[in-house]
């Protein structure tokens, strides 16, 4: 077994080194490999990053705060006092062995915070593979913190639709629904008067939903860089929402924020500055840098992309309706609330306003299949999903039925390369079929609850069902490929790149 340890005591001239020596001795006797960082008065020789990455477990034998402990995030950890390490190093190592064994299956439960996450696989020390595993752990950490927001917000919105009718969204936010123009609520104290209790549910749900991407980005960065990652991560998520970059933008922002914090912490600073690093310098600099990148480097291309896509779709009007439905389906499922999805949805709204009700029907149906297909997949092949994902799957039924496409984000954010293409195929089938059947919708949202406003409802349901089945089948196949046991972190199957995040 490979172990890394940090020893640290108040004065830093005696116990720190005795504990290090005791741990090294005991490890040698047990045949373990150990590297110890002595954070004492002689100046700490930091552990090599490669040693930390390869370690199966971490020991803190410390009576004072371990410096830069976030380096060890995600590793099985045993914390003890320096004295215990000196007096009973063998006992400490026995605990380490237990912790390392228990650490492995934790990969199957990413709902647990990072401290319990799995170690890097010890069998093959492939630098590439290590990164893939860690990338997945980072994403899953963000997802596990995001899921309650999706569930709470999504279900509140769905309930608001159920009790108040889908027009409740327009009563609160304004806009046109089924030919009626709503001004929207400008003074929140009048919320219940103007939009009713359903309006209250909708407003609360929408607020919880607005935190979805910031929380995802914040906790991806948190998983990478510990607490200092939280501020730049959350800010990058908020900015991703503002520039319309959606959850993929938040994913990229979170990874970027985490990487920037890690990079800043590598900079060696004089002792005097070191004290204000975590409180002032790191949050300030990392937030400034990631915020600037989001607004300038990512924001502009996204705006340009949306404009280009919109023009392209406008040019397609009048061509083959089925092809248009397929394209809209692909776009709706690509980023679920992100820039591409928004273009497709806006195209649906514009078509609705100009009297083309078929496009709206195709767009809405294609936006419902991702959560519904995933919900079906979690029921049919439970073992392919983490416990957190299975819970998300339960909520996804209601969210999908309500045309809340975001219900699919927890799945897509945790495993984008497998999930997103599967969702796109299913939505393309539904979009194409809906257009082929000539189904129409006079409602811009509301999902299954506005079936009364849908023309050719039976054909519409057939299109929907077909997409759900295709989505579920594709997800199951994609998740089964190259992954025998989902409980194990599967480094090789997860590409290292952030290619999907760049979209």
């Amino acid at each position, binding site marked *: 077994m490979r172990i890394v340890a940090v020893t640290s005591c*108040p*004065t*830093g*001239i*005696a*116990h*720190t*080194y*005795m504990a*290090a*020596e*005791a741990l090294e*001795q005991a490890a040698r006797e047990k045949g373990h490999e150990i590297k110890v960082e*002595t954070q*004492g*008065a*002689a*100046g700490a020789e930091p552990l090599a990053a490669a040693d930390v990455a390869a370690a199966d477990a971490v020991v803190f034998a410390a*009576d004072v705060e371990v410096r830069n402990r976030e380096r060890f995030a995600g590793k099985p950890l045993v914390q003890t006092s320096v*004295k215990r390490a*000196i*007096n009973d190093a063998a006992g400490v190592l026995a605990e380490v062995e237990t912790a390392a064994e228990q650490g492995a299956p934790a990969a199957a439960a990413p709902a647990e915070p990072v401290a319990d996450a799995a170690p890097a696989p010890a069998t093959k020390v492939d630098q590439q593979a290590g990164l893939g595993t860690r990338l997945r752990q980072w994403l899953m950490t963000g997802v596990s913190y995001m899921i309650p927001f999706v569930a709470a917000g999504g279900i509140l919105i769905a309930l608001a639709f159920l009790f108040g009718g889908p027009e409740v969204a327009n009563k609160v936010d304004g806009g046109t629904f089924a030919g009626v123009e709503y001004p929207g609520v400008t003074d929140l104290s009048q919320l219940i008067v103007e939009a009713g209790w359903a309006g209250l549910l909708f407003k609360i749900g929408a607020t919880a939903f607005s935190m979805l991407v910031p929380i995802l980005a914040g906790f991806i960065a948190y998983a990478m860089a510990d607490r200092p990652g939280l501020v730049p991560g959350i800010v990058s998520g908020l900015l991703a929402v503002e520039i319309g970059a959606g959850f993929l933008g938040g994913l990229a922002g979170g990874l970027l924020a985490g990487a920037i914090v890690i990079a800043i912490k590598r900079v060696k600073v004089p002792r005097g500055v070191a004290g204000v690093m975590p409180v002032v310098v790191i949050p300030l600099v990392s937030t400034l840098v990631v915020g600037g990148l989001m607004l300038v480097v990512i924001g502009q291309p996204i705006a340009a992309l949306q404009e280009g896509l919109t023009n392209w779709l406008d040019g397609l009007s009048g061509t083959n309706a089925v092809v248009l439905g397929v394209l809209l389906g692909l776009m709706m499922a690509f980023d679920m609330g992100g820039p591409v999805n928004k273009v497709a949805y806006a195209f649906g709204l514009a078509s609705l306003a100009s009297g083309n009700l078929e496009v709206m029907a195709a767009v809405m149906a294609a936006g419902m299949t991702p959560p519904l297909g995933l919900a079906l997949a979690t029921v049919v092949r439970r073992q392919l999903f983490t416990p957190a994902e299975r819970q998300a799957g339960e909520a996804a039924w209601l969210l999908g039925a309500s045309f809340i496409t975001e219900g699919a984000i927890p799945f897509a954010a945790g495993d984008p390369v497998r999930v997103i293409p599967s969702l796109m195929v299913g939505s393309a089938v539904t979009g194409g079929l809906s257009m082929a059947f000539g189904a129409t919708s006079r409602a811009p949202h509301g999902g299954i609850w506005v079936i009364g406003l849908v023309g050719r409802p039976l054909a519409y349901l057939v299109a929907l069902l077909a997409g759900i089945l295709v989505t579920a089948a594709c997800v199951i196949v994609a998740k089964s490929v190259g992954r025998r046991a989902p409980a194990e972190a599967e480094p090789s199957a997860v590409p290292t790149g952030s290619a999907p995040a760049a979209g």
Partner: protein
Amino acid sequence: MADLITADLVDLDLTAADRHEATRRLAERLQVAGRVTDLDGFLADVRAREAQMPTGIEGGIGIPHARSAHVTEPSLGFGRSPGGIDFGAGDGPADLIFLIAAPEGGGAEHMNILASLARRLIHASFKEALRTAPDPDAVVNLVNKEVLGQ
């Protein structure tokens, strides 16, 4: 740099009522040798460290120690107490007492010497040799050999 320890700093028959007195006995030797400038100031620093957590280690070892402005160079005072003196270890009194004195803001070289001394303390062979050392010079030679490699 002067030696970490000299024969003057070794007391092979240390008797004291408690750990504070034992520490004072050894500290007096450091003061006489000119390594500690203010005895009471230095003892206050040691006591402050001891108050954070007793420095006794299982296996009969006490390590009162401090980084102090009243210390001129890294020094080790060594006492052997046949009767044993309680240093707060879980398994009983200490018969080997190491008073480690480090100058405030000591350079890395100083600290490295003390670090390697601390590392030797947990080696059974080192402790055994100290217990059977016949005279102060033997202790000095042992420390020099084990810690400084001389």
